[in-house]
């Protein structure tokens, strides 16, 4: 069902090679990867540490160029520049500490051609949507980690992106907050109709949130398995009680275990 229609994002034989720290050798970080993301789907990627998950996200976002292969968004080639319609939420706290919550969110609209009144309305609407309406004048230092991450999500949503890239957005949060934030992301995904691409370490998080989950190999990161969860669109964290949830996480772990062991056994590269 998901595969109906043209892909929203297409990756064709994408690779990424970095120059090593000593300058002489290179590090093959990623690929080749072929992948299609479909309009409105929730796609998650899991993989061992250092397998290139975040690199993959940066290539899709246009934050870094591919070494070979191509990334297309809505039929247009992404060539190391940020295309319109893409929003990114990072794992690290990306709030600007000198700006109020309201100004942080409004930052997302700085380069968007809209009337000032429309910008103010959008900011107000997103703050209300994220439950931050009463903290609009607070500074990030006055908020909890979960609320700061909500500010970053609000800053992304205010631009009304059609593709939302989430780079381990709940990595720094405690388990309960992660579950609740996961529910919020599902709600926002349903409300906005955007395509969501989530990078995560947590297998249960991927199994709970995504329509499809890709498993990446140890470096160089390749897609070694893609699992379709077949969850209904109307879902929340209670999906963990579903009989199929355990089977999905078990399959994810089966695919991932050997790759994680490879990462652990890899000798430390000389500085």
């Amino acid at each position: 069902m998901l595969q109906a229609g043209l892909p929203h994002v297409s990756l064709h034989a994408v690779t990424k090679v970095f120059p090593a720290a000593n300058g002489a050798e290179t590090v093959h970080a990623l690929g080749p990867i072929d992948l299609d993301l479909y309009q409105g789907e929730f796609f998650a990627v899991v993989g061992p540490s250092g397998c290139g998950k975040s690199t993959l996200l940066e290539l899709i976002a246009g934050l870094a160029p591919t070494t070979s292969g191509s990334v297309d968004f809505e039929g247009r080639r992404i060539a190391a520049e940020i295309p319109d319609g893409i929003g990114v939420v990072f794992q690290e706290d990306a709030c600007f500490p000198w700006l109020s919550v309201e100004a942080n969110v409004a930052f997302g609209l700085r380069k968007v051609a809209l009337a000032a009144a429309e910008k103010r309305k959008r900011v107000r609407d997103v703050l209300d949507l994220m439950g931050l309406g009463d903290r609009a004048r607070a500074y990030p230092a006055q908020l909890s980690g979960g609320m700061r991450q909500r500010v970053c999500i609000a800053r992304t949503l205010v631009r009304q992106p059609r593709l939302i890239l989430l780079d381990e957005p709940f990595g720094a949060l405690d388990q309960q907050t992660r579950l609740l934030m996961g529910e919020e992301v599902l709600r926002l995904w349903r409300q906005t109709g955007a395509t969501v691409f989530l990078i995560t370490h947590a297998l249960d998080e991927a199994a709970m949130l995504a329509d499809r989950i890709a498993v990446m190999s140890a470096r160089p990161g390749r897609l070694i398995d893609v699992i379709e969860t077949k969850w209904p669109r109307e879902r929340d964290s209670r999906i963990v009680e579903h009989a199929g949830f355990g089977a999905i996480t078990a399959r994810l772990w089966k695919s991932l275990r050997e790759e994680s062991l490879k990462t652990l056994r890899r000798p430390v590269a000389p500085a």
Partner: protein
Amino acid sequence: MTRVTVYRVLVIAAAVLLLEGLCLAGIIDRLTMPPPHRILRDLAVILASGSQNAAIVKTLTNASIALALALVAGITSAVVLHGYRPVRETLEPLFATYYAVPIFAFYPLLIVIMGLGDAPQIAIGFMLGVVAVIVNTLNGLDRVPRVLRKSARIGRLNAIETALIVTLPHAAPYVLTGAKLAVAYSFIGVIGAEFIMSRGGMGYEISFAYTNFDNATMYPLILLILLVSIALNAALSRWEKALLKRRGQ
């Protein structure tokens, strides 16, 4: 007022009272230094009469120009250097040893190049202040998290917008530290240069009063320099504190 501030004020008050006592008791003779209350009164007389207004205006203007140039050139240079690692690596050792160089030794050379006007005095103030601004701004820029730069790119800001809207505001507390040093250095530079070779300014007037045993002019002018410098530094410190408080630091 915090307890530390109260202690600070008490220490200064105690030092002034001690000086007052030593002067009044004649342990410090009147030719060497008048008592602090007298200095204060003489300062009020000088300000009321306007006799030193030209010198005060000249020094404050030149120090302000030197400071403004040091801030603009220092911050701009730091932003550029931060973006060009090889250039930065080449210049960094020079910055580290910069203050070991007696800048005043260049004063005659500056006079030859710029003439006897205000320009060489401003140049000395600028030269003393600019590196402090560069070093501290670079220090602040080094601490900008990568994720904020990525956010700027996602927000489609160009390099100049990123510097003005993201990296420099994040580095603001460090830039202010550089600015505080530059305030002191630009005053030292301009007044020091006026001491050596000038026909006006507070440095020249202090030097002239010193050679003529005119304590009623010399000490009030020194006090005025102290007050202006302390007031500027206090204002910048307050601003720095407000910035850090907003960031939960």
